[in-house]
């Protein structure tokens, strides 16, 4: 596979510590397009090993607006279904440029390990010094040891290490969209984290036309008032939930977008610092980046202040437990004190409703009917590598347009029939 790819699939056996590499066959791309289409295919190929498969969409990391997504596919310990979790912020982009298109992780390590994935090299490293650390400390440790603050860390905290059904694979310091309990799978494999950094390049088949088309899309999107709003509160409103602007406003410090995504769906709130501060804070932990709408709404409905909600979600992220599940279980138990809720983390157990029933994370579904149309739009996002919330907002990004761009980028022809088939395979 020459274009929009590194042409490399890694198969990692944590048990034997063997790493083998396959080329990304063009026929596979023609058949499955990419992203969840191929992670699902690879899961099926190695199903007897019950692997975790990571990959990026065909357009991830490109100039296509919202092309930020990486995908993690595995059998959910919560639902028992082969499920897909979106990897946002900069994680999907770094994965795309890491020199691997897809990574299949099978087997269990006999002692804690982490994967260091960089520029087409995949190392299995000892993680005994990291085991027991929360996700913040582990991320700090890795970035300090490797000497780079842009390394993206997909890792677990104590929840995953202790086999919690609600364990989440976090992204750096923040909550991810993992509602599927994939953190538990990491723990079972003795896999503390994956550190990813890529300085690779992507070749585009028709670069000038591709860039012109992307520029045209961006121009159109800029004129759309629906895509001009920023922050997690605006994203919640766009998904049909109440506007959280007034709730978060007094604590809001800044908004943050995922890689190349026109709408910032994340908001940094200051819980322990003046939100109006315009210089670098000297407080070690001034606040928290809100990345998940659902737990925020649930905590608000339970009567918690925005500050307490931020504090709870921060400790959830550190412990590596799904904030949506914690919000749901706290509400059921009538808990509202952040310290009390944190103490109960080891006791929280699933199943929880917030996992949803889809094979896609319900992270991008709040307030919406998760029907056939929602699933199709999610599937498109997961196959091509588009931000799942953004894709629901950006009506300009039609399936035809996205397939045209995929064709321009790869010198291949992708039809709506192929897309239908791939979506059918994923949803089957």
């Amino acid at each position, binding site marked *: 596979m020459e274009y929009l790819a590194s042409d490399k699939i890694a198969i990692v056996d944590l048990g034997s510590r063997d790493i083998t590499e396959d080329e990304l066959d063009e026929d596979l791309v023609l058949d499955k397009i990419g992203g969840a289409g191929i992670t699902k295919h690879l899961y099926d190929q190695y199903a007897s090993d019950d692997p975790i498969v990571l990959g990026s969409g065909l357009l991830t990391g490109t100039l296509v607006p919202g092309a930020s997504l990486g995908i993690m596919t595995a059998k959910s310990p919560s639902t028992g279904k082969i499920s897909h979790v979106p990897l946002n912020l900069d994680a999907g982009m770094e994965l795309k440029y890491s020199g691997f298109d897809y990574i299949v992780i099978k087997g269990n390590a006999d002692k804690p390990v982490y994967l260091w994935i960089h*520029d*087409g*090299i995949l190392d299995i490293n000892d993680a005994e010094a990291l085991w027991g650390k929360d996700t913040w400390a582990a991320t700090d440790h890795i970035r300090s040891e*490797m*000497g*780079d*603050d*842009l*390394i993206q860390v997909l890792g677990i905290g104590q929840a995953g290490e202790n086999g919690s059904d609600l364990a989440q694979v976090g992204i750096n310091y923040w909550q991810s969209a993992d509602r599927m309990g994939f953190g538990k799978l990491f723990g079972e494999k003795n896999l503390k984290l994956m550190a990813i950094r890529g*300085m690779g390049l992507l070749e585009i088949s028709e670069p000038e036309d591709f860039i012109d088309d992307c520029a045209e899309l961006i121009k159109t999107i800029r004129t759309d008032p629906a895509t001009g709003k920023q922050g997690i509160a605006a994203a919640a409103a766009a998904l049909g939930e109440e506007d959280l602007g007034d709730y978060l406003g007094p604590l809001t410090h800044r908004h943050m977008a995922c890689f190349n995504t026109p709408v910032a769906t994340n908001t940094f709130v200051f819980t322990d610092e003046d939100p109006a501060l315009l210089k670098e804070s000297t407080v070690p932990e001034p606040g928290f980046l809100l990345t998940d709408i659902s737990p925020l709404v649930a905590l608000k409905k339970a009567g918690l202040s925005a500050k307490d909600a931020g504090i709870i979600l921060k400790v959830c992220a550190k412990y590596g437990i799904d904030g949506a599940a914690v919000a749901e279980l706290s509400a059921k138990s009538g808990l509202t004190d952040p310290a009390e809720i944190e103490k109960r983390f080891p006791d929280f157990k699933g199943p929880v409703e917030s996992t949803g029933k889809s094979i896609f994370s319900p992270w991008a579904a709040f307030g919406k009917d998760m029907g056939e149309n929602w699933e199709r739009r999610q599937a498109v996002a997961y196959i091509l590598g588009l931000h799942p919330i953004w894709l629901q907002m950006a009506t300009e990004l039609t399936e035809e347009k996205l397939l045209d761009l995929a064709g321009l980028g790869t010198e291949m022809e992708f039809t709506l029939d192929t897309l239908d088939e791939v979506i059918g395979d994923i949803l089957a």
Partner: protein
Amino acid sequence: MESRGRKTDFRIPRIGIYTGKGASHSWLWFVEVFERQGFYNLNFLTEMDIVKGGLETVDVLAVSGGDTFSIAEALGPVGAIRLEKFITGGGLYLGSCAGAYLPLNSSKEHLNHFNFVPAKITNLTKTLPESHHMKDKFSTCYGCSFIYHAVREAVEITTTGLPPFGESTTFTAPLYGGPPMTITDPASVLATYTNFTQKTLFLVDRKLAKKTLLGNAAVIREKMGHGHLHLYGPHFEHPHFPKANLFLANAMMHDLPQENIPSEKPEEGMAILSGPERKGFIRDVKRELSNSRIVAAGLEMIPLKWTIGSKVYETGKIRVFLEALWQRMRSLERGGYILVRGGEEDRLVQAALHVTENIRQIKKGWDRKIDTLATATALFNLLNKTSALFLEIYFRGKLFHSIRENRI
């Protein structure tokens, strides 16, 4: 030394590139330009190699930018004798920037061993002019005087068109501290500074810059015994200046001594890596280069620089070395020959590992607000050595391949 080999129709220059003490990153530009020209017989020489007779196996010695004083001190009187013997015996000395200052007449300690060319520099002053930009790169002490750098970046150069180098032409080349020169014999001047460009950065008043540079020699060719010296004020070897590169290569080929046809067989004691050994070697080197360049890219975002000797090094220079190696990894991965001897492969992997450790130590030092000058000094030394070893192996394989393919 009348001749450096039997006369043939094929002229594959055996080029030595100075990578020893005092050399900055710009020797890598020579590497790139020579590679583009198809000159693969490259040898990377330190001051010790030269002192020990390393010039006996090359036709050309290229010395690029860096710290002239450090280079002179490192080579010492023995190195100067070796260099003189090399040139008078028919060798060609290519000096650019610091390498151009080195053989100019000087009374200063260490430099006074290299009084080979009776040219004068026009950027020497007793009274330092006011600097307008880049105060840290603007001047260097020179005894009781100062060498100042009037401008940086691209300047216009016009060749004198003296035979056999064809008609007079004008092009641009970058100046990063190299000398403007005057010399009594006009036949020695191959090119002069004729104008500034939109990209020229003035470090002093424009009038003074004009007086210092325009009309003065940018390139000098001096005969010495049977050999020659070509001295370039600007970096004609900078890869972004193809016309200057071509001029440099043509000039070099004109004054090149004849040389032997290289052997098709690997030298004795040389092994061609293959199978898992080759795969492992590539993976290990690639791993460390990747580790290093990831940290180095991050360092470029912080305002950190060091003065090592009399040169200022920014963090961006680290990646110039690393990228020069990284871009050549692909060729090795695609099946290029890897010829090694005496455990070179292990030494390269170890050296690359030390580079990573040093760069990471600098990052930690910055985070903890600890002085990193000593680590940076060690790092640049290590980068020179590691790059030289990598490129030695790389070009050995490339030359071997080229000889096999062309049966020359």
